[in-house]
């Protein structure tokens, strides 16, 4: 957490996170709601899961993220209400 602002209020946002494939098995569920500091990016969201379950770290380079059903860069900032998914390499067809 960054140090508190002078007002002592840290604005926060809530996003819905979806997991698929192997990541769903590691997370132990398909979706959850996560509260983050306002201004957080997808990279920081992923880091919260790594902090909770270190096994996530090994998937960082083989996963892509999406924001509201569009592929998104790791640097994408998050807004409250976003639906973020972490997608392993796709294997449909």
């Amino acid at each position, binding site marked *: 957490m960054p140090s508190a602002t002078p007002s002592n209020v840290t604005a926060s946002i809530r996003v819905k996170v*979806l997991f*698929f*494939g*192997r990541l769903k098995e590691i997370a132990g569920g398909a979706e959850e709601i996560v509260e983050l500091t306002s201004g957080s990016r997808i990279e920081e969201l992923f880091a919260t899961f790594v902090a909770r379950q270190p096994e996530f770290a090994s998937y960082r*380079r*083989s996963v*892509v*993220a*999406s924001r509201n*059903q569009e*592929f*998104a*860069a*790791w*640097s994408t900032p998050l807004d409250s209400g976003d639906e973020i*998914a972490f*997608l*392993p*390499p*796709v*294997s*449909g*067809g």
Partner: protein
Amino acid sequence: MPTAASADLILLVQKTIDADALVRHVRTGADGAIVTFDGCVRNQSHGRRTLYLEYEAYESMALAKMHEIAADVHAKFPIDRVAIAHRLGRLEIGETSVYIAISAPHRAAAFEACRFAIDTLKRSVPIWKKEYFEDGAVWADGELPPIPQDTQTRKSAS
């Protein structure tokens, strides 16, 4: 006259794909060719005998991406109608997992469009398959979809 994309049929299904219905959907009097692709479950993977597969999808995004593929196909090729269905859940050996039918006035465009559609689907639609073997199960090696404007460019995992 090229058909509007609204005439396309894009489906995720839990039961057997009705291939005949997809072909009927794309067949019009303006077409001289229909090319289809039938993707089916193979009995082995890297030399290991496969028992069955399970597919899962990020359904809302998968449908959106399949519609994007159909729109791209219309933009790139002089074709008439597109039908794409992907099945989810458990599939046995030999069953159809994905079926594509594309109609066009002339065959060359239909062949090229169908190839483009399946290649793009395999690379960019968020669907995953888990392969079940006699001694365990693994998520299949897949392809990493291209992501926008990131500094790193990477290809497939491992």
